[in-house]
Every structure is written in C-alpha cells, then in structure tokens.
C-alpha cells in the first residue's frame, strides 16, 4: 500500500483478477468477535455453523482438529461487522473493543 501514483494501474483498473485477497480489510475492525466454547453448538456437537454461513468475508472457519470440533478467525479479513454475534442462537459470540 505504499505505491506511488505511477506504480499503480491507470484509473483504478484491476488488471489481476482475484486481487481482493491482497486487500486486507481487517484494519477496518473496531470490535473483534470473541468465542465462548462452553455454549457453542459447533464445539459441543458439530451442529449449527450459522456464524460460518453468515460471515460475509469468510473470516470464521469451523474446523476439526485432533478429532475435536474447533474454530479459527481470520483477522486479516474480519471487519468486525458483528453478523456472527448477531446470528449465534446461543449468544456464544461477543463483540469486544479492539
């Protein structure tokens, strides 16, 4: 993001498809989602997954690790929009100030 005016394509044209990946929107985040493992249905029994379905930036991943249900947030792209927290039926996600 330090390029000068003459080091970037003309008129904002995007000449390489898929380069949105290079644009880390995590910097926009004012609040970060914090997960409570105790009540999360995915951790409990591998169901629900609403946070993963609704995340507009694909920034929450529900995974299996060492035979257990687990999760990870991708803070490079999580804008802190709070949709995951809003959707969670057991209120297991809280938004906390950065």
């Amino acid at each position, binding site marked *: 993001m330090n390029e000068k*005016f003459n080091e970037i394509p003309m*008129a904002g*044209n995007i000449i390489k498809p898929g380069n949105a990946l290079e644009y880390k929107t995590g910097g926009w985040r004012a609040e970060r989602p914090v997960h409570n493992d105790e009540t999360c249905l995915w951790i409990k029994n591998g169901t629900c997954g609403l946070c993963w379905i609704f995340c507009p930036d694909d920034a929450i991943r529900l995974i299996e690790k060492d035979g257990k249900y687990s999760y990870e947030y991708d803070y490079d792209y999580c804008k802190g929009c709070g949709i995951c927290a809003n959707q969670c039926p057991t209120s297991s996600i809280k938004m906390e100030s950065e």
Partner: protein
Amino acid sequence: MTTVERIPAEKMKIEGLTGDAAIAHALKQADVDVLAAYPITPQTIIVEDFEKFYANGEVKTKVIPVESEHSAMSACVGASATGARVATATASAGLALMWEILYCAASMRMPIVLTVANRALSAPINIHNDWSDSYGARDSGFIQLYCQNSQEAYDTTLMAFKLAEDHRVLLPVMVCIDGFILSHNVERVEMLPDDAVKKFLGVREPVQPLDPKNPITMGPLALTDYYFEFKEQQDRAIHAAPEVFKEVEEAFKKMTGRSYGMVEDYKTEDAEIIILTHSTPAGTAKVVADTLREQGEKVGVLRLKMFRPFPVKEVVEKVKHAKAVIVFEKCLSFGATCNPLALELRAALYNLDERPMVTDFVIGLGGRDVPPTTIVEGYNKTKEYLAKGEAPLYETLGVRK
C-alpha cells in the same frame, strides 16, 4: 505522430454547413464506432444529421438512442471501455443530467468526444446561448475546446479524437460551439477527403480495454488509501494535453494549412488594452478591435480556444504587457469573486509583479444579443476604470438595470 501531407485544394469538399452539421460531418469522417445520444436543442442537428448518415448506410456506427443523457454518457463510457471510438452530443439541461457520468468518463480515462452546443440553464427555461452549461462542468476532468466558426467546429471535432486518444492524455474532450449563433448558422466549410481523415486519425489503440480473453475490472472502489493517487494520475494527464494538442494541430496544419492554437492572438502585440473572450463573441470583438484601431485605439483580442486545461503560460505571455485586460464571458458564477473566465485570468496573473487591470463583463446570458456596441461599452468603461485606477470585480452588461 502520424505522417500526413498537404491535401490539394481540388480534393477538398466545400459545403455550406451549420456548426452542428459541420460537427456531424466530422463525426462521420472520424468513423465513430458508437454514438449514444439523447436529443436536445440546439445540439439536435448533430445527431439528426448523423442518424441520416447512418440510415443512408454512410457510417457503420452503432447508434444508441438512449432514454436520457445520463444513459447516453453511461453508454459512451461502456463502449469506450471496450476500446471503441465514441462520441455524443448535448447541451444545457442534457449536460447537467450527464453530470455524474462526466466525472466517471474523465476519471476512468475514456477518450470520448462530447460535442456541446452551449445553451443557458433553466430556470426560466431558455434554449439560447450562454456558457453556463459547460463552464459548470469545468472541474469534471474534461478537456474543453471552444470554437468560433463552423470550419473550426469541423476541424476541432476531428482533432479532438486524436487529442483524447493519445496515450499521454486519455481523457474525454468537450468541443463547444455557441448554441444557435453557431450551431444553426450556415457558413462555408472546407472538408477533407475521407481517406485523409482516416490516415490522420487512424484506428484507436486502447491501452487497457475490456476484453473477455484478458479480464480486468474498471471503476472499482478506491478509498482513503488509493483514491488520491488516481487523482494525481488524472491531474498529470490533463496537464499533458497542451503538448499533445500542439502536435495534433501541427499535423492538422500540414494537411489543411489551418491551426488555431490554445489561444488565438489578434493584434495584441502593441495593444494597451486586450479583450479576452472566446467562441462567437470573439469574432465580434475582432471587428470592434479593427474599428477602434482605425480611431487610433491600441486594442487587441486574445481568443481563448482551450479553457481546460487553462493555458496559463500562453495567456500570461500575451497579456502581461497590457494596461488592462477586458474579459467578456457568458456565464454568471453566482456568489463568486468574479466569473469563471476572469477567475482563471486573475489567478494566472497573480504572480506577476506588475499586473494589468482586469475588468470582467458578463454578457449575453440566455442568448441576449451581443452587438459590437456591447463590446465598445465594455471597452469605454475599462478606459474610465484605468483613468480612475480601480475597477469593480465584475459587472453585467446588456441587461436592463
């Protein structure tokens, strides 16, 4: 730059054409790929004539009769993005409705040629000439060229494509003529043979066109971190226009013997008072200057052709030795220090240690006639102000008050 040669007189076609018709003929010979337009007086004949060429099979252009000027300019941007040579025409309220997309066309670096028959803005509704429409668009990023007669309208429209499409510029160009006064008046126009125009303009070579084989995204989001850099690019591009314009004019002159310059100098060399104006009032001003010179007055006319980018150096060079510069302009910039043309001139002169006095007369709004007497009145007032040593920032002339 293309190599061109002088076209012999017998190969030129001479016709009596209105300013609009002259532009239509130039658009035809420029072999425009796409023309998207919506009719509005006094531009109407441009598109009407062009549609006639299309109906007669004289052009291969895709003509898109859109539902509004906003759509016209949008279609032009889309077509231009594919690498096509694109033109449209409008005036007044039509130009106002294009507003949002004017900025897109310039910012996306689309070399569209937009011909404008200058007309007053509403209200009250008025179909006649002043410069409020295109002066209002002076910050849109378009290059603006103003023409004094039909021949110049034809010549400028052709040159506009070469200027716009040059890779150092890549910006849209507005070619402006005075509504009715020029758009509907028949004058002698000398037209080049088709093959000469073809050779002069060539085929547009787009830099980054929309192409399914090489997909790119145009006009995406750029926020606090990149937007400013794109504006820096655009600013540099418009300042490259004068150099390219000179080259284009040089090539055109080789073909036709005609060139205009960013400013046209008329008897300014020894002039104590210089009139600065453009479009049709410049013709009247030249006649007035001749008459006043017969009476021993040292007066000249500087006729501006390029308003954007404003040719600061050329204007200052021509007027700096004068005692006064009289600006005649057909636009009121409500609430401003003075009006657009005088604002440019005063700013351009500011760095001089000794500046000529600048008087600013707003004339001809809504097509109010500008007879030689109006020019003389401005001249006499300026002489009075010179004797007094001070002048008002601006005043209106030719209005009942």
